[in-house]
């Protein structure tokens, strides 16, 4: 016999991290926060007051020269805050600078102007302290290492003891459901499984921050949806702060607490959308009218704001 009250209790019992995190977050009923072009300079416009920000991006601009020597403005005056434990998506079409922004946070790129603070540290200090895990679009596994030794790589580099290495590898491979493949080589795994290994490797160092650069965009729709659900499950168990870059609107809505929508030419923050769908989210979430209405709202904002750019692609 199934009782609704029991379900609720189980939910709280099995997902304590998620639950406390929800309590810390401010009201989700606000819906949209549309940031007009004039308001972008205000760094607090994209943040929610009162919560502790892990990442503060202040008026970041990025200009680089393309092959013809022309200046390209990849990012213009982007300011946003990301709270501790929050799952946010950077969403936009190609050329909107979402990956550039992620790479600036990861200290793989340096901004032309503006600043980024991560827990009070510069991106460089944060990287040197090995405080984030990164998942790329490609799995970026080392072909010569089997699965367990791929997960071991960052632990070796960080000089974690052998016993602890093995414990964490087992833990992470359990988490992503690949325990039985620990001695396989990457080439023996499917694309989706390889990407799971990439996630396990990023989580093995127990980072506070997980940076994901279109991690599922090379996968088919079915695999992607399953991995989305698995990722939320992992996130609810680990309570990391996740910054997730994607060009897929429904993926961004399904995963995130907040979606930062970026527009191209030049890359800029065009709106911030609170996703107030209840958690845990599952396949039923995808069927809900609230989900559809959020997806279509975001889609309409794109077509209104930058249809010529989209038509080009």
């Amino acid at each position, binding site marked *: 016999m199934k009782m609704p009250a029991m379900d609720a209790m189980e939910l709280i019992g099995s997902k304590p991290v998620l639950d406390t995190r929800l309590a810390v977050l401010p009201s989700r009923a606000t819906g949209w926060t549309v940031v007009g072009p004039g308001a972008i300079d205000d760094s607090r416009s994209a943040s929610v007051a009162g919560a502790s920000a892990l990442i503060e991006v202040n008026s970041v601009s990025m200009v680089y020269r393309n092959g013809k020597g022309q200046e390209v403005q990849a990012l213009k005056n982007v300011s946003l805050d990301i709270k501790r434990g929050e799952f946010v998506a950077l969403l936009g079409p190609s050329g909107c600078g979402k990956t550039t922004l992620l790479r600036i946070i990861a200290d793989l790129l340096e901004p032309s102007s503006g600043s980024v603070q991560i827990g009070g540290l510069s991106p460089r200090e944060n*990287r040197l302290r090995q405080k984030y895990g990164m998942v790329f679009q490609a799995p970026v596994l080392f072909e*010569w290492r089997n699965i367990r030794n791929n997960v071991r790589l960052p632990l070796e580099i960080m000089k974690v003891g052998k016993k602890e290495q093995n414990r964490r590898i087992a833990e992470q491979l359990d988490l992503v459901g690949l325990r039985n493949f620990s001695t396989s080589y990457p*080439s023996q795994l499917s694309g989706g499984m390889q990407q799971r290994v990439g996630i396990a490797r990023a989580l093995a160092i127990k980072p506070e921050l997980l940076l994901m650069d279109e991690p599922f965009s090379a996968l088919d729709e079915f695999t992607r949806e399953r991995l989305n659900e698995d990722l939320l499950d992992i996130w609810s168990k680990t309570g990391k702060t996740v910054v997730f870059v994607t060009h897929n609107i429904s993926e961004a809505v399904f995963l995130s607490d907040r979606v930062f929508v970026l527009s191209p030419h030049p890359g800029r923050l065009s709106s911030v959308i609170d996703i107030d769908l209840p958690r845990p989210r599952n396949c039923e979430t995808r069927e809900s009218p609230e989900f559809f209405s959020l997806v279509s709202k975001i889609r309409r904002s794109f077509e209104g704001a930058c249809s010529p750019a989209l038509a080009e692609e």
Partner: protein
Amino acid sequence: MKKSDGISAIAWTVGVVAVWELAALVLAKGLHDPMAASKLPLPQDVAATIAREGATLAEAASVTLSKAAIGFAIGAFVGYMLAVLMSVSRTAERIAFPYLIMSQMIPVLGLAPIIFNLVRNMDASRIVIASYITFFPVAANSLSGFKSVDLEKRQLMHSYATGLPTTYAKLMLPFSLPYLFAGLKIAAPMSVTASILVDMLGSKSGIGVKLLYSLYGGAMDVFWASVLVSAAMGILSYALVLLVEKICLPWEAAAIASAGRAE
């Protein structure tokens, strides 16, 4: 997969021997060529000579082959270290690479006597020439390996804040191994050839000496036996590199096997 490999190897060997036998028979019996035995002797005659001369052939082969192996090892080490150096520093690459190319312009046939005149020692000459021949394909292939490391793998290491030594130990060196072995596979038979070439410059021992003396002395059966042994040495050197590659790079075999399954 393994079984069909074995079958094709047997079929291949049988085919070569059959064609050889047929051609030799046509030459001797069909065309009544008086020089048939020296132009193309019957395979069983050559086999008999190898059996008869086995001890001396083996001794000669081991002299040539052991020096080739030492030279090969030195050349491979130097070549790989050069590639590492050139991959670490663009300046080093710009300075060294023209010399590498130039070194390949000098014909070994001309270089060998010069080296011999310098070192005045047959064994040392064999080793120097074999390593000289080896280092270029190893350096060039390994360098292209270092340059093929994908950007994202480097960025991953960057995200772990690794220094140069760790990046090389964990990423660059293992990544370059298949390229290194590609170079080694080219270089191994070449180093054997180089060692044979030095034999011919007036050495007293080695398979090259056997080739030369039997050719000038008219001992065509010994000549053909020596040719066959030389060829076997080249093949053996290649097969050894292949074997070591298989042992050192088990993931390559796994990749090939799973690619085969996917098709």
